[in-house]
């Protein structure tokens, strides 16, 4: 069984693109459309990597990272935030919250895979 990745994004297009790319590379992908749903989906599910958007309703990516980091189960799970170039301050917040790295939207498949392989080979 390949590694499992959770992709969190409120945009269906983005979720589809991320999961299409990752599945194509043999990853097992879970998706959620906001932080709250991601957390509930992660109850009883272990993943090797979490990729999350920042701007989301209900619970944004930063809060999600904070929540995950405070959960012993996800303390050592790499978390990448998906962000656009204009979100510099968000990147900082992401870092402060404990994210592992970021990926700039839009991304191309190779790039995404490269980054993903980097943190969960």
């Amino acid at each position, binding site marked *: 069984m390949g590694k499992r990745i959770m992709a969190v994004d*409120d945009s269906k297009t983005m*979720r589809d693109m991320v999961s299409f790319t990752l599945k*194509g590379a043999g990853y097992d992908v879970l*998706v959620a459309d906001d932080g709250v749903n991601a957390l509930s989906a992660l109850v009883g599910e272990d993943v090797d990597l979490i990729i999350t958007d920042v701007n989301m*309703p209900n619970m944004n990516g930063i809060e999600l990272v904070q929540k995950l980091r405070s959960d012993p189960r996800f303390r*050592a799970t790499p978390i990448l935030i998906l962000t*656009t*170039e204009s979100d510099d301050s968000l990147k900082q917040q992401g*870092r402060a919250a404990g994210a592992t790295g970021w990926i700039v*939207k839009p991304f191309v498949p190779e790039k995404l895979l490269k980054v993903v392989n980097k943190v969960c080979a």
Partner: protein
Amino acid sequence: MLPAAHDDPFAQFKVTFFEECSELLADMEQHLADLESGSYENETLHAIFRAVHSIKAGAGAFSFSRLVTFSHKFEYLLDELRTGKLTADDGLVETLFRSFDILSDLVGFAQNGEAPDEDYGQGALDQISGYLNGETVTAAAASADEPEANIPEASIPVESAEAASEAAGQSPDADKNGLKHFRIEFTPREAMYRHANEPLLIIRELKDLGKTETTIDTSRLPALHIMEPEDAYFSWVFDLWTEYGRDEVDEVFEFVIDDCDLTIVTLDDNNNVVEVDVSPGLDSGEDSGFGFFVSDDKLSAGEVSDAPPAEAVAEKTASGLVVEPDVKKASVSATPEGAVQKPAAPAAAGPGAAPKASSIRVDVDRVDRLVNMVGELVITQSMLAQEVENSTIPPTDRVFTGMDELSTHIRDLQEDVMSIRMQPVKSVFSRMPRIVRDVSKKLGKKVKLITEGESTEVDKTVIEELADPLTHMIRNSLDHGLETPAERLEAGKTEEGSIRLSAEHRGGRIVIEIADDGRGINREKVLHLAREKGVVSEDATLSNNEIDNLIFAPGFSTADEVTDLSGRGVGMDVVRRNIQTLGGRVSVHSQPGAGTRFQLTLPLTLAVLDGMIVSVAGEKFVVPISSILETVRPPEDDVERMVDGSCVVRIRGEYIPVVPTARVFNFAGGEQDPSKGLVILAETEGGRVVGLLVDELSGQQQVVIKSLETNYKAVQGIASATILGNGSVCLILDVDALAKMPALIPAGTMNSNIHKNMAAQVAAE
């Protein structure tokens, strides 16, 4: 779907993207309306921002550069707004609306593969710039000002940086193997582990670049009992011989660069240092579109070392340009390189994916096919049931229980399948605030729109067809119904008029009402005009309600001067026709001085209905059960015959006009006497009750509606057709139309046993 992925691996997601865009735009419109009405929360602003943000992100993925550029700037404005740097005053809201329009158009252009004019949306962009410049004179406005123009500029430093490091790496490094030799000293800090970065992966990645010799320094490792498991104690020195350049080496450390001490030196074959670089910054490397976190304390230092201070301001913009060049690179390179990853994709993207997804998007065509198939299944099932019923199979046979179960299941299946197509009317309702806003502004009227029952669900087809008639009726209310503020004050009303748009389910149908508190219909004027135009004859006596409903007569318009709003060459007659095509009804109720109320009733679905099968003169018809109140066989005493030969029956003290169905259709035979046949009391859309005289009832059945109009032609009194279980075609009666159709009265059936006043009473109905 898959072949489209040839050029662009993400092409197949365009459909999703545009669907998402239309949803986002619809939500946005609603939010903007809230914003304008002042009834908004912070979340409203965030939601608008997120919508534009999502559109931008998707647009970037598909290289819709105009859309990216515009949404980028729009987003910037919204960001200023949501962070409280700007306030949503009237002017700004106007700009937001305008930008919204442009954004919608650009989405449309992108979807149709059209290219808008060069200066398209420039006005809105200028307005946005105005706001940004006015409020924030600093870097923010500057960076948002010319996103497009910046693209080439940005790519230059990136390329030159690459070239520079390439040159630096190559020229002095022509060692005998042609490999470059890097010495990398790598000391992780505790933060690196806290961010869940794994040194092992980094080491592995380095090894992938070439030959490595690794030395690990464990000298800082304390005794076990004082060791903090999450602290960082190791450091490494790697000697790497690689054909790759400095950029690739830097990239390995991209995520951890600021969570470690890193020194990379380039050595020549005599191990002399050619180039030293301590913790290279992100931007010196290839513009990667991803990265590691720069810690706050190191932020300024990192930037200063890598970019001239002057460029620090432009940094935001520069990194923004990742969007364009990156995507272009992708579409070029994706074919050869992307192909490596692609083959596995289709297989893996199959079912079983996304176990937590709460919804899926399906082609409407597929749903329609499903609906159709289930319809056929219903017909087949009822045919089968009939066959079994007529067979010699003993009623105790298991076939009967099986048939019962089958029928239950099919019914459930059908309901579920139908519900797939159901959507809340919100998608149409949400467009109305905008219309009210625009129109009322043009007319100089103050109007508040109240919507109710937005979550009421109705078939998707009905929703789609609803937008135009609703728009028109709302316009009509704004234009003709509501008064100007001055007129309202004079009439003792509040300055602000209101329009209430509501939806609810009633008796298997959806009822939509548009009620205003305006001046009501001017009956005198309507009647006068109707006579003038020959819509009604000069001597006709009409009830108030009948006069009101004259506005639906073809070609009728009461506007003294044709405004550019209602007078679009489309009258209320078109509205009525549209609604009728959907199997719906529209009626109007007006109270002079107090307001006008349009009521629209529509079937929830256009596909099936519960029908009562009746016989009339040997023919079978279906009466929609939703309109049936009860069925009676009135005693002779309760039947009253009118002068003109028509009948009324007295039901619990009320007189109900009887529609002699056979005679209406000019059938020979058929029961003429209500006391001998059956009278189905059915409610019309206007709430009137009529009695349909039929010979007998032959059962209840769900029928699949087949349009008579598309298969044959419209017939008055018939709504549509269906196919019964036995395969025969059966017509579905249109109760409303029947109630209005004159019966063909055979001469000599007059009955003198009548009361003049009763006749008057019935006629008045």
